[in-house]
């Protein structure tokens, strides 16, 4: 990799700064506490699909492994259990094995905020107001997008509409895999999760956020939300993502507050390289009030407002 000074992006970078400023102003006006957090942690939440950066703290002959945080969640949950209330983090997060690409980078700026006493749809209302506070409507790649309302669709409806996969097929692993095979996907040695992810990315995602409004897609199968609250149907979780022009911008869920259930889900996550954050379970044991949170990629959001197609166009320094 090489360092590139891309000062030609100065005007775009200024739009990024405007979006960042608007976010801070909105959060402050709505009484969210800004929290500064470490980016190095000795333990992490087990999320086996995330690749982690690992480093070492050295002091004389003592050494301790530290990990760059893929999300600030493990810190914020502790603060929430101890009553910090509505709060937000706007800073760097790190995910290994995500090479720099138009929508990805191994280090990125994340806005993560939590609101007490609401479920995921309560957060959806806040996000819409946040978008409106930046601009009421935009033109993105020649198409008008208004932030007046959401286009809402469940994951199940979206698979039916865009991939012709019925609700029955969506939730039954065996049926889903044979449907994927029929559609021409390679299925040998692949799991339900692998194929689900592929079809979601290939057939569903490109259609989201294309009808003049941002799309809110919600109620994901429980296999895809380790920290989210289960719906009464027992097979979906209270999770949503939102999209503009096929681009995912944020991921939200009603927080799972049941520590026993959380412990079971952690065990199901399988092998991870880092020590598991037991304090996270301890914090839940202490007691977490009902709340919901969302993570939004700030560079992607600014990219949309700047009418660009790649996050590197916003940056003054790119490492590629």
């Amino acid at each position, binding site marked *: 990799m090489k360092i590139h000074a891309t*000062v*030609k992006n100065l005007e775009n970078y200024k739009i990024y700064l405007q979006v960042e400023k608007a976010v801070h102003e909105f959060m402050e006006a709505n009484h969210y506490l800004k929290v500064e957090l470490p980016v190095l942690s000795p333990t992490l939440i087990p*999320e086996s*699909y*995330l*690749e982690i950066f690992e480093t070492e703290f050295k002091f004389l002959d003592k050494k301790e492994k530290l990990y760059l945080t893929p999300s600030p969640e493990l810190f914020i949950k502790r603060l929430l259990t101890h009553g910090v209330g509505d709060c937000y983090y706007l800073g760097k997060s790190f*995910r290994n*094995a*995500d*090479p720099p*690409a*138009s*929508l*990805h980078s191994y280090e990125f700026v994340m806005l993560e905020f939590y609101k007490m006493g609401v479920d995921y749809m309560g957060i959806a209302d806040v996000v819409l107001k946040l978008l409106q506070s930046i601009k009421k409507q935009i033109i993105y790649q020649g198409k008008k997008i208004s932030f007046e309302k959401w286009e809402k669709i469940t994951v199940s409806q979206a698979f039916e509409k865009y991939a012709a996969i019925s609700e029955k097929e969506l939730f039954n692993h065996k049926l889903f895999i044979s449907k994927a095979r029929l559609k*021409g996907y*390679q299925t040998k040695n*692949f*799991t339900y*999760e*692998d*194929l*689900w*992810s*592929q079809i*979601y*990315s*290939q057939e569903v995602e*490109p259609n989201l956020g294309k009808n003049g409004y941002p799309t809110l897609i919600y109620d*994901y199968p429980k296999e*895809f939300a380790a920290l989210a609250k289960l719906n009464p149907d027992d097979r979906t979780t209270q999770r949503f993502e939102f999209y503009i022009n096929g681009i*995912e911008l944020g*991921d939200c869920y009603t927080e799972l507050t049941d520590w026993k259930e959380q412990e079971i889900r952690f065990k199901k996550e399988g092998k991870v390289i880092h020590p598991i954050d037991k304090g996270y379970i301890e914090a839940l044991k202490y007691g977490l009030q009902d709340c919901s949170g969302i993570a939004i990629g700030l560079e992607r959001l600014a990219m949309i407002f700047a009418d660009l197609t790649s996050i590197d166009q916003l940056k003054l320094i790119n490492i590629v």
Partner: protein
Amino acid sequence: MRINAGNLKKGEFVFFQGAICQVQKADFYSPGKGSALMKARLKNLVSAKNVEYAYKSNEQVEVLDVTSVEMQYLYKDNENLYFMDERTFNQSSLPISIVGEITRFFKEGEKMFVYMYNDKPLSIRPPSSVKLKIIEAEDAAKGDTVSGAKKPVKVETGAIVMVPIFVKIGESISINPETGEYTGRV
């Protein structure tokens, strides 16, 4: 040769749904739901249309074993570019729609590398830079000293390129043909 989709690179040729395609873009990413994916943009070399496909990063993909042959670019008509292998004098042609935007920087008589598969030309290996002479340019306006200011000029193939204002008519410049950007004077 079969490889993991996660190792696909821009410029490689693959079989996709029965057609030969060239990888235009390949982004590896973990969506946070299930396994990592390789999102590829593939250009169908018959229809010249692009298609987006999300491979599972560890699925097997057949990559074509192509060779690249140095040829002389002869000329173009409305649809095709014509090349000649200088050792055998065999001529080949490629549709402009397949080779794409970079053709506007091709100068007749230049040597280029043509990708071949089973003796059939597939596409061009884009040169990393081309050197072309400026044939039309306005003088820089006096007092226009804003750093980084640019002006359009016409190069000998007829293409328009943005260059720094101090660059003059008659000078030769180097251009990155894939981005169309000026990279320096030669």
